[in-house]
Structure formats: C-alpha cells, structure tokens
C-alpha cells in the first residue's frame, strides 16, 4: 500500500495544490472502497427496504395459490377502513404526549440535581440511570408484577391507604398509561445523561456572573441554563419521538395490544399484521405510514427547530 500517490491522497488545501489527476482518482477510489462494506449493508437493510416497503404496499399479499398482484391503493383503502389502525395511531399519539414531555422534564430535573452539590449524588445517579441499561423485556416483566390486581406492589401500597385493588392493565382507560409510566421510568435516566453532559459543558463562571447580578437559581435556570440546553433538548426530543414509535417490547410482554387494542401501538400493529396474520402487503402499507412519520420528524428537526435555537 505504499503507493506514491498516497502522498496526495489525503484531501485538503495543502495536498490539493499538487494533486494530479491520477492521484485524485486514487482518492475517489480509496474513499469508495473504504465506504463500500458499510454502504452495501446500509443499502441492503435501510435504503432498499425503505423503498421496497413503498413498492410492496401497492401489491397484494402472496398466498399459496394466489401470487402477489398489483392492487394499487387497495392496501391503503383497507388501512383507512381498519379501526385497529386508527386506534393504534391514536394510541401512539397519546403515548407520545404521555411519555415525551414527562420523561424530558424528569430527565432535566434529575440532571440538575445530579450535577449539583446534593448529598449522595453518586447513589442518585445510579438510581436514575439503572433502568436505562435493563432490557425493556425485563422491565416489562417486573412492572407487570407491580400492576397485578390486589397483590401487586401498587395495589398493596394502595391497600395501606384502604383503597381497593384495581385491574390496571385490564382496564381500557389505564392500560396505556401503565405502559407510559413504564416508558418514562425507563427513559428519563437515559435522557438525563445527555442533559448531564450538556450541563457540564456550561462554564461555571456564567452562574457566578449571574450570582453577582443577584439572579435566583430559578431565574438563572430559565434565562440561561434552559436556553443553553436547547440543542440538547432538541436532540433528546427527536430521540424520544423516534423511540415512541420504535419501542413496542413492553406491549408484547404486558398487554399484547389489549384490552381490545387499547394499547396497540403502530409498530405493534405492523408486527401483528406482518407476523401473525402474514399479510405482508398490508403490513407494508402500514410501515409506509410509520416511515412518513419518521420523515416528518427528520424534516421538523432540520428546518423548524434547528434554526431557531442555533446561537453558536
């Protein structure tokens, strides 16, 4: 690999001045060769399937005696008429609203505490962060135990106050909120880490300068810390949104989408349609919706939010 051309392979102003055509070609070739393995896998498992999903959503599900045929918008038509789809979309929106602000707010609070001079902050940090490294499956198992009517932990605690047992996961109105609580519990510590990292990047003399001006902690937080954390908040927000459309492990374990689809999320519905009913055509159409949502998030991040909070 000791080629003579290597001397000018490296791109850059200094090397650029002396670049010959063949050396430039070498750089192109080298770049692509290095990229190739990763690019191939990305293309095969991200780009191709994303496009393939759109393509297949216009085709019927192949069955033993009926090969797949072009059906136009039929799959989308069934989607519009599918009450479970609408239920799943609604659930997912509630899930977003329930998990995102709560976990971000808690994460911020935790980070501020753990970053401060509070006593025993090592222990606090451990307590907040541990749920993050546990698998959602394990977390769901543990929480299912707590939600058990009558003798589960939550009802036992309620029992101390003379409250009756309650069927948390078996009641339409509470089941989704149970999942939301589990999700917030698991995610807040994760997001806390990002806030913690960002807080540690804020120079301490800013708070000293503010102290001399007599600003209260709250005023400083509102006027300085919080605005300075905006890029982190955006990052966390985007992650939280993606996660709320990506995480269905707890649904699989705790409720299987029930009762009566009250906890069915979009991806869980796709999973059921695709891998229980084996209706891959329809599952593709559902996935297109999910992709559209993610594309929207990406665009939102790119255009609306990013611009407003950039100050560096």
């Amino acid at each position: 690999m000791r080629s003579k051309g290597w001397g000018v392979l490296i791109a850059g102003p200094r090397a650029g001045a002396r670049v010959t055509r063949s050396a430039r070609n070498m750089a192109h070739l080298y770049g692509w060769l290095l990229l190739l393995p990763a690019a191939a896998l990305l293309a095969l498992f991200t780009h191709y399937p994303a496009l393939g999903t759109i393509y297949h959503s216009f085709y019927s599900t192949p069955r033993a005696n009926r090969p797949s045929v072009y059906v136009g918008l039929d799959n989308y038509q069934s989607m519009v008429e599918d009450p479970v789809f609408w239920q799943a979309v609604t659930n997912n929106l509630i899930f977003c609203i329930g998990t995102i602000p709560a976990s971000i707010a808690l994460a911020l609070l935790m980070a501020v505490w753990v970053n401060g001079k509070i006593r025993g902050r090592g222990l606090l940090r451990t307590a907040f962060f541990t749920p993050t490294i546990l698998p959602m499956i394990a977390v769901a198992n543990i929480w299912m135990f707590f939600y058990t009517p009558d003798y589960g932990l939550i009802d036992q605690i309620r029992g101390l106050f003379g409250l009756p047992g309650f069927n948390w996961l078996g009641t339409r109105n509470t089941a989704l909120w149970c999942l939301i609580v589990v999700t917030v519990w698991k995610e807040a510590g994760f997001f806390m880490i990002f806030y913690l990292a960002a807080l540690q990047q804020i120079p301490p003399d800013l708070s000293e300068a503010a102290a001399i001006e007599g600003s209260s902690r709250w005023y400083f937080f509102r006027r300085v810390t919080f605005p300075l954390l905006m890029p982190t908040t955006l990052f966390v927000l985007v992650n939280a949104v993606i996660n709320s459309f990506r995480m269905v492990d707890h649904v699989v374990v705790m409720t299987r989408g029930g009762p009566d689809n009250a906890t069915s999320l979009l991806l869980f519905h796709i999973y059921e349609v695709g891998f229980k009913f084996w209706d891959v055509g329809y599952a593709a159409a559902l996935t297109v919706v999910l992709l559209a949502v993610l594309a929207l998030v990406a665009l939102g991040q790119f255009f609306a939010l990013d611009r407003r909070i950039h100050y560096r």
Partner: protein
Amino acid sequence: MSALARPSIIGDALETAGAWLLALVWALPILYAFWTAFHPGEFATRFSLLAPWTLENFANAWNAAPFARYFLNTVVLVTMILAGQLVLCTLAAYAFARFTFVGHNVAFALVLVQLMIMPDVLIVENYRTMRLLGVLDTTLAMALPYMASAFGIFLLRQTFKTVPRELDEAARVEGCGPLQTLWKVYVPLAKPVYIAFGLVSVSYHWNNFLWPLIVTNSVSTRPLTVGLAVFSGSDQGIDWSIITAATFLSVAPLLVAFLLFQRQFVQSFMQAGIK
C-alpha cells in the same frame, strides 16, 4: 451552584428530600423485584423482613429454560454485531473524515438516514430479505441489519476529524499507507470513543428484542431477551419469584458490569450523546 443566591436551609433540605424521594421511586421497582427473586414464592406478594433468603428461584429458572444457551446466543450475537460495527464503521468513518471522493456528501446524507429509520421499523421488508438470503433463524440474520451503524460512522467520523493533520502527515512521511495510518494513528487516538461506542452498542443489542423475536424461532439462536419473553409468556400461569429470578439472570452480566464500572458507563453514554 453554590454561588447562586443561596436558598434558605429549608429550601435546600426540601430539594434534597425531593431528589431522594424521586431516586427511591426509581430504585424501588428494581429493589422489590430483587427481593422477590431471592425469597420463596409465598413471599412474592407479601413483604416481610423475616422472610428467609433463597437461591432456589434462580435454580428453578435456570432449569426450566435453556438460559445457558440463551446466554451463549446473546454473547455471540453481541460480539458479532460489535466486531462488524467496529470494522465497517471505522473504514467508513475514515473515508468520510479524510477523503474527498465523488458524492461523499450525498453518501454521508444517505448514511444519516439510518439515524431516523432504524432497522427496527423495517421488520417486514428485512424479514423478506433474510428469507431470500436463506439465513432466517440464524445469528447472522439478527446481526446483519445493525452492522453498518450510522451512529457509529458519525461518531467515529467526528473523532477522526479532530485528529491533527500533522500526525497523519508525519505517519505518511514515515512511509505508512492509508490503512496503516488508520491503524497506527487514527484508531489508537480514538480509543476512548471506541470504548464508549462499544458500551453503548453492547447494552443496546443485549437488550434488543423485536427483531430477534421475529427472525429467530429456535433455542439454538434465540437471545436472552426473546428467551425470557418466551419463558414468562408460557400458558401455564405466572410464578413471579421464578420470573423475577429469570429476569435478573438475564440482565445480571450487564447490571453487574454497570454497577462496577458505573463511571465509565455514564461517561461513555455522555460521550456518545454529545457528538
């Protein structure tokens, strides 16, 4: 924070109490599950300080399902993914950090697409691909979609970009080829980032569930998470003591590693998050 207008002692105490209360709420589920796992079944639902401690639940769980095999599967899976990621992401990141080639901007944008559209949501199409490749129900099928990690490429590219060009040039003057330079200059300098990425990747894939659930259906490939879900989803009714024991069994290596190397874990996650 001490410099800011000092709140009253009462306010301080209230805040400390609040923080501790929240931490307690956060720790309680794990502590209680831990307690349940180490006590006989009849104490699963009533708390008593005098309850005898036991390891029987762990023995029962271990015997009731092939957890040893699941462990092996998970370790193989996580290792395979990490090894693939390290190699592929290093090469790609190097290309993006130090080479200007035709379409590198477009290529980079295409890589970043994966940050939004993770393989987790493309289950239907990826399953189709795996079937065509004839690798269903293998560890490879679980690993392939994650090997080219956009996150890893991005992270390493940022790191490689901070390596001073002088070092690169010095290595070239000494006669290193591009791969040698990568190996001798860039990789050693990025060691902390590799560790950070490794920890994040291992904990992510140790915990991954949906995709392995879909592509595996036998004991010889199924990772811990799926094994645990199958185990606790049996038609036979739920024994909380055994299920919590099984739960702890399957998270133990990660949990113990975390508790021992907490600082490194937190630092790594922070480092990976700052980008």
